[in-house]
């Protein structure tokens, strides 16, 4: 075969396969949205699910997913920032640092079901926290934390060396340099990464089935006392998230419109992840512009 013909054929194949991936995504999104969008309404998003009658919604599940996300980020962001900054700025290259990096790698590639089982054994049973939002958030921490560490470390490493050196030249302490010089520059990348990782938390199901539970007690949305068992804010109540709800409705749903609910909930989930993606891009750009602009003014 002539090289030129081979080149043409190869190029066609590559382009075709690349476009196939685009087609797969469009097909997937199209299928989910076409099947689900018709079922989404304000009522669907806010009302409680029905067990055997049609017309149930996913209100509590949606709230649980968001609340669980907030709880998880509250735990992982400070811890992840700390460990990430340590890895980027303080850790001296050597065996120990290498070992810690290995741990981060292993933790982030653990199957979520293992994390869920570990959570069931240690958090739910051993610490007796039961199936609860806290248990779920702690389990999610296990695989969100290494992600945060990696994001932070990479963001700090990407900051130009001169900025740090300028700080040293001014006689600033290392801590001051980290918090006042490096952090603001690294922040846009960190925020983008955090929002993207939040998408994963939002869609996680396998780890939560064993930790946050598969039931949602009645929620009283006028009761905002976090100590009350029926308050939506109580972190010690069991909570079924949207992803777990899809799983449950698909497998055990007795309601006559179970298939539509699953489709609708899937669409809600995918749309939320889409929003996270867009928000990550937008926020990253916005903050970057703001921070760099303010620099110029000083």
């Amino acid at each position, binding site marked *: 075969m002539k090289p030129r013909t081979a080149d043409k054929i190869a190029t066609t194949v590559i382009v075709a396969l690349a476009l196939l991936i685009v087609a797969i995504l469009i097909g*997937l999104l199209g299928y989910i949205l076409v099947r689900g969008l018709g079922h989404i309404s304000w009522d669907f998003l806010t009302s409680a699910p029905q067990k055997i009658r049609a017309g149930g919604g996913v209100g509590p599940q949606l709230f649980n997913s968001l609340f669980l996300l907030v709880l998880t980020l509250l735990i992982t962001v400070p811890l992840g920032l700390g460990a990430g900054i340590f890895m980027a700025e303080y850790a001296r290259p050597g065996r120990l640092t290498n070992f810690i990096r290995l741990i981060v790698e292993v933790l982030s590639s653990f199957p979520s079901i293992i994390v869920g089982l570990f959570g069931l054994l240690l958090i739910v049973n051993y610490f007796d926290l039961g199936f609860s939002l806290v248990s779920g958030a702690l389990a999610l921490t296990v695989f969100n934390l290494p992600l945060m560490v990696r994001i932070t470390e990479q963001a700090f490493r990407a900051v130009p060396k001169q900025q740090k050196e300028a700080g040293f030249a001014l006689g600033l302490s290392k801590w001051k340099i980290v918090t006042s010089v490096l952090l603001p520059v690294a922040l846009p990348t960190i925020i983008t990464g955090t929002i993207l990782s939040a998408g994963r938390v939002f869609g996680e199901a396998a780890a939560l089935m064993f930790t946050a539970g598969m039931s949602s007690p009645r929620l009283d949305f006028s009761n905002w006392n976090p100590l009350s068992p029926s308050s939506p804010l109580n972190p010690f109540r069991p909570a079924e998230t949207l992803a777990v709800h899809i799983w449950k409705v698909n497998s055990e749903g007795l309601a006559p419109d179970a298939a539509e609910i699953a489709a609708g909930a899937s669409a809600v989930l995918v749309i939320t992840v889409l929003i996270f993606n867009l928000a990550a891009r937008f926020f990253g750009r916005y903050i970057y512009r703001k921070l760099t602009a303010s620099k110029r003014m000083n």
Partner: protein
Amino acid sequence: MSVKPKKTRLEKHHIEDLIGRSYMSLCVLLLVVIIVSMVYFVASKGLANFFSGKVSLSEFFGGTKWAPDAETPSYGALPFISGSFLVTLLAALIASPLSICAALFMTEIVPSWGKKLLQPVIELLSGIPSVVYGFVGLSVIVPFLRDTFPGQGIGVFAGALVLSVMILPTITSVAADALAALPQNLKESSFALGATRWQTISRVILPTTFPAIMTGVVLGMARAFGEALAVQMVIGNAPFVPKSLFESASTLTSVITLSMGNTTMGSTHNNALWSMALVLMLMTFLFVLVVRMLERRNKI
């Protein structure tokens, strides 16, 4: 305060520094604690059956009969272990060529807009939750396979198809990074010799970036190996080594999701499931190890 006894007065920034440093060390220590306790707990549960002599290592890893509720129970996990490897390898076989083509498309064919088109696609694919993949797999892929191929649609091939879409983003993004990192002059010298684009790709680019692309493939396989819900929904879950790709089979993850809640903690059946979790965990270590080895080769 006893850290620096010579100094009578600690300046504010010293204290700040100290607090910051110890907080960060604590965060790192936490990572170590998490992993140590995970390994400890999963191992203590997973090894319990072997220590108590209820299940022998050879029965667990060599036995093909899984009948925990029979009169004489047998706990052969080979069907699950082989099922996991089978779907993982198949998924990697399907996804790798697609991903490499996508990466080439982004970096070599149309670098101007290829990345703009595919990057969001890849990010979105990786963002779709696995339950949604399972849901779509059950309502689209399974009926399609049932009508096109012999068998019931459900089975190893359906699982591998669902998984391959799920690991596409992982392989593609790693491969694209590797291709983009390739020194420009390498390509230019090939073109200068009169090579066509395909010759350059197949003789220069792919061989040089092979270890890096393999890193992506292994990372994808690690994800496929541990994926639970999506596979469980479409694979059929029969505890047998399948004779055909369109026959119902099981993976380690699928049997764990199916049976963990139905067995009581501490029973032999339950502990056997933990042994499988331990196998999953060890496989994760292995995958990370392979990735590290590939990365090291890539650096040289």
